[in-house]
């Protein structure tokens, strides 16, 4: 898709804004710049997970392999795994800068680790069902289950238990507690990482489709 090429514009602009335009925050100082990278990474990992879940539901509803939705779910999940690992690493380095400890067992930190575990479990299941023709369906079922239990982690538990994490964008007051310049920068970085994710996702889908067609043509000979 052509609109995804905008990532080549948004990403450099986002980085320039993050380092040069946005001001350093009062309490954390320069470490606040991690906001513009950590939050989009975490957001994209959740988005990837949701897209994998939606693809799984569509795969089961559709009932056949014609759109390769199970492989698309796998591609989305592998991208999501990459982003969740990056988000965790960025978050833990940021927490060292801001709170002087790499890991606090904060509920929100733990919820991202659990998202990571869900991905690992999904990949183990995918690999265990290597030569099984039902692999797509069974892994889709598992991903839908993980999708059902994910809201408990990401949205409910961090709000029930007190967390050291800063207020998120979706907070009880319904406002965004950021200065104007920081808001703009954050939005641009969010958009650029989302565009990056979709660019990679569509690329991986095309590669998987080509591999599949190649296998089929080699089988036919």
């Amino acid at each position: 898709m052509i609109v995804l090429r905008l990532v080549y514009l948004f990403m450099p602009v986002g980085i320039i804004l993050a380092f040069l335009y946005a001001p350093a925050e009062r309490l954390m100082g320069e470490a606040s710049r991690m906001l513009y990278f950590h939050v989009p990474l975490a957001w994209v990992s959740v988005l990837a997970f949701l897209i994998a879940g939606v693809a799984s539901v569509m795969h089961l509803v559709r009932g056949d392999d014609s759109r390769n939705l199970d492989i698309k779910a796998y591609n989305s999940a592998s991208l999501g795994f990459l982003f969740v690992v990056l988000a965790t690493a960025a978050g833990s380095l940021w927490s060292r800068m801001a709170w002087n400890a790499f890991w606090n067992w904060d509920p929100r930190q733990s919820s991202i680790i659990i998202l990571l575990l869900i991905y690992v479990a999904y990949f183990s299941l995918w690999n265990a069902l290597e030569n099984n023709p039902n692999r797509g369906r069974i892994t889709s079922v598992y991903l839908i289950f993980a999708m059902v239990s994910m809201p408990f982690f990401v949205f409910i538990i961090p709000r029930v238990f007190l967390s050291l994490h800063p207020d998120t964008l979706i907070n009880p007051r319904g406002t965004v507690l950021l200065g104007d310049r920081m808001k703009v920068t954050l939005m641009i970085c969010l958009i650029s990482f989302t565009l990056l994710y979709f660019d990679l996702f569509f690329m991986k889908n095309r590669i998987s489709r080509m591999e599949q067609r190649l296998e089929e043509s080699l089988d036919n000979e």
Partner: protein
Amino acid sequence: MLKELLQNIRKDFIIEFRSRYALSVSLSFAGVSTLGIGLATAGRPLAPGVHAVLFWLIMFFSAMNGLLHIFTREEEQGTSLFLRITTAPEKVYLSKLIFNILMFLSLQLLITPLYLFFLQVEVRSLLFFLLLVPAGGLALASASTILAAIVAKSGGKGALFTVISFPLVLPLLWVAMTATGQALERPDYFDGRNLLFLLAFSGSLVAVSYLLFPYVWMEE
């Protein structure tokens, strides 16, 4: 429909009673772990939070050892094809679920006193504890049933079962452990929200499993 369900459950109970495989595996695991903890601590009292964590870990791994058998037995003995032909998948799921719930609740009935007496744990809010343990057991059994079906289709390895169940079971373990820790520590503690969470979690899992089980069970 009810008659068919009851027939299936009765058949499962009879088969289980003949070999007592799942029951014996779970109980021996729980017994060995409890004994091991007792020997390691040598009678020294542990903090209530630690007891809560150990208790639910033993519950979790007993479920992992014992509740997988219901589906892998069908695959190994070759009766799963017969079951697929004769019974609707929803009925198969409900009968296996009810069997697993009943079995895990009876396992808990045996493991809980074993743990409390061997490690001399004092339960300060008894009512809440007695409500919490079956609620958690219900949730564990509901999660384990559908996951056992998934794992049985992929070769029935127990290690895979533990890996894929851990992320789904973690919220319920988290809530159960913190609530049990409070129940052991504080007298007259009653927080209905934790119970509600566990019941809601099992309810949502059972509902989604009921819808998704045919996709796992029926092969092309």
